[in-house]
C-alpha cells in the first residue's frame, strides 16, 4: 500500500511513545480497540494546574496507519485544553496523514482514544471533587 510521507514519518519516528502513571490524578488514560480486530491504542494525557494538556504519551498495537494516527494526536493535544482536544475529529487526522479509505478506521480509533483519555481524566477529577466535598 502506498502511504503519504507524513504517515511514513510518524511510523518511522513516532512521537511521544511511552506511558504515564495511570494511577496519578492528573493523568487520563484511554485504551481503545481490540486485539482480535488487529488494533489497540493506549493514549494518555497529563493535565497541568492551568488546565492545559502538558504531556501526552501513546502505545499502539496496529498497522502503520494506526501507529501514525496515534503518534499524530499526541502531538496535536499537547498545549490544548481538554475541551479543545475533544474537538479533534477523525477526518482531520485522516486528511493530515492522507489515509487510504480502508484505513479510515485507524483515525476513528485515534479520536476514540483521545475521548476515552479525557473521559477518564474527568471522571478522576469529579471523584476528587466529591471526595473533597465529603471531607468538608
Amino acid at each position: 500500500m502506498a502511504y503519504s510521507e507524513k504517515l511514513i514519518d510518524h511510523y518511522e519516528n513516532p512521537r511521544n511513545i511511552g506511558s504515564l502513571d495511570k494511577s496519578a490524578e492528573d493523568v487520563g488514560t484511554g485504551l481503545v480497540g481490540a486485539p482480535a480486530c488487529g488494533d489497540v491504542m493506549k493514549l494518555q494525557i497529563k493535565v497541568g494546574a492551568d488546565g492545559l494538556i502538558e504531556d501526552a504519551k501513546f502505545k499502539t498495537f496496529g498497522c502503520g496507519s494506526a501507529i501514525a494516527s496515534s503518534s499524530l494526536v499526541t502531538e496535536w493535544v499537547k498545549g490544548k485544553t481538554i475541551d479543545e482536544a475533544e474537538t479533534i475529529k477523525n477526518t482531520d487526522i485522516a486528511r493530515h496523514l492522507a489515509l487510504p479509505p480502508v484505513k479510515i478506521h485507524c483515525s476513528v480509533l485515534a479520536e476514540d482514544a483521545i475521548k476515552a483519555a479525557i473521559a477518564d481524566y474527568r471522571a478522576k477529577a469529579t471523584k476528587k471533587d466529591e471526595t473533597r466535598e465529603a471531607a468538608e
Partner: protein
Amino acid sequence: MTAIAQIRRNDQPIYLDYQATTPLDPRVLEAMMPYFTHKFGNPHSRSHSYGWEAEEAVEKARAQIGKLIGADEKEVIFTSGATESNNLAIRGVAEFYKDRRNHIVTTVTEHKCVLDTCRHLEQQGFTVTYLPVKQDGLVDLDVLRAAVTDKTVVVSIMAVNNEIGVIQPLAEIGKICREKGAFFHTDAAQAVGKIPLDVEAMNIDLMSISGHKIYGPKGIGALYVRRKPRVRLVAMIHGGGQERGFRSGTLPTPLCVGLGEACEIALKEMDGEAKRLTKLRDRMLKGLQARLPEIYINGDLEHRIPGNLNISFAHVEGESLMMGIKGLSVSSGSACTSASLEPSYVLRALGVEEELAHTSLRLGLGRFTTEQEVDTAVEELVHQVNKLRAMSPLWEMAQEGIDIKSIEWAAH
C-alpha cells in the same frame, strides 16, 4: 553463482515470498528463448517443419512434466495455470458425472480458486462438504473417511498449503478415495518440484500444476488427468479440440517449454535443494527463537515443505511489521494486508486466535535464497519486532502480567 546476480540487484529487497511466486530460473529462460524468436511455429500445424518443430518441443515438455509426477505424457494437459487447472478438474468431473454422483469433499484451507469453484457448484445444485483441519493444519483421515459417500464424485485436497506449507497425507487420502470410488484431485501448485509426488503410488486421479511456483514462467500450468482408469471431464474452453478435447486453444510453445524445463531441473535438483533449504529454514527459525520470546509457528513443522515458515510474532501487528522490514519482501496473514480486513482464513481454521493471526508473517525461502540473506532477515526482524513491541500496549500488559483475555475489549 551468477544466476543470483541476474535475479536480484543489490538495491532490491531480499525476496522471501517464494510461495507467492518464484523468479524464472535462467536455465529455463534459455530453453524458452528460441520459441519466442525463430522457432515460432504453431505446434498444431501439421503441414510444415515450423509446426513439427514446435510440436516436438511441446511434447518433450509434456514428457518432462509427466516424469516428475510419475505420469505418462499422454495424461498431461496444458492450461494457463493452477487456477484454471483447479477449475477444470473440479467442475469438469462434477459436471460429467452429475447424473450419478453430486457430492464433493474438500477442506476449509484450500486455495480460493478451489473454494470458489466449489461455491459455484453448490449454486448448480451440488452438495459440498468442507472438512475442518486439525491444529497442525492436516486433515483428519477418519473425518475424511466418514465424509466420503457413494455419492461423492471428487475429493479435492491440496498437496501443500500455500500459507503454512504443510503437506497433507496424500497416499492415505488417495487410498480412501480409491476404496470409496471417488476421484482424488489435488492442487499441487505448492508441492510439485518441492516434494516427491507419484500419481500411481498416491492414487491421484487429477493433479493441478503451476509454472511460476517452480521457477518456470507465469501464465502456464498443467493438469494431470488419469487415463487408467479413465477420468472424464466436461471441457470449459471450446474450440479446436486441442489437449484431448479438454482444453482448446493454441498452445503457448515457449511457456510449455519453460514449464517442462522447470520440471526437469526440479527432478534433478529436488533432493539437494530440499536439504539446503531445510538447513536455511532451521537457521532462520533458530536465529529468531534465540532472540525473540513469544513467537509461534503456525502449522506442523515436520510435515512441511522446506522453504516455508509461518510465524506469529505476538503483540506486533503484521502489516506494521512488514512496513518496518523494508529490506525484506514477505507476506502477512494480518487483516490489514487484505481488502476484506479479515485475518487469514487458513490460520483461523487451525484455531489460531485472531489476535495471533494478526501478527503472522509468511517467510518463503527458495532456490536463490542465500545464508547471508537469511542472516540479514533475522537481524531486521529481531530489530523491528523489538522496536514495535516497545510501543505495543499489549506487550506492556503481557510484561506486567496482565492477561489480555481478561480485559473486556470493545470490538469495532
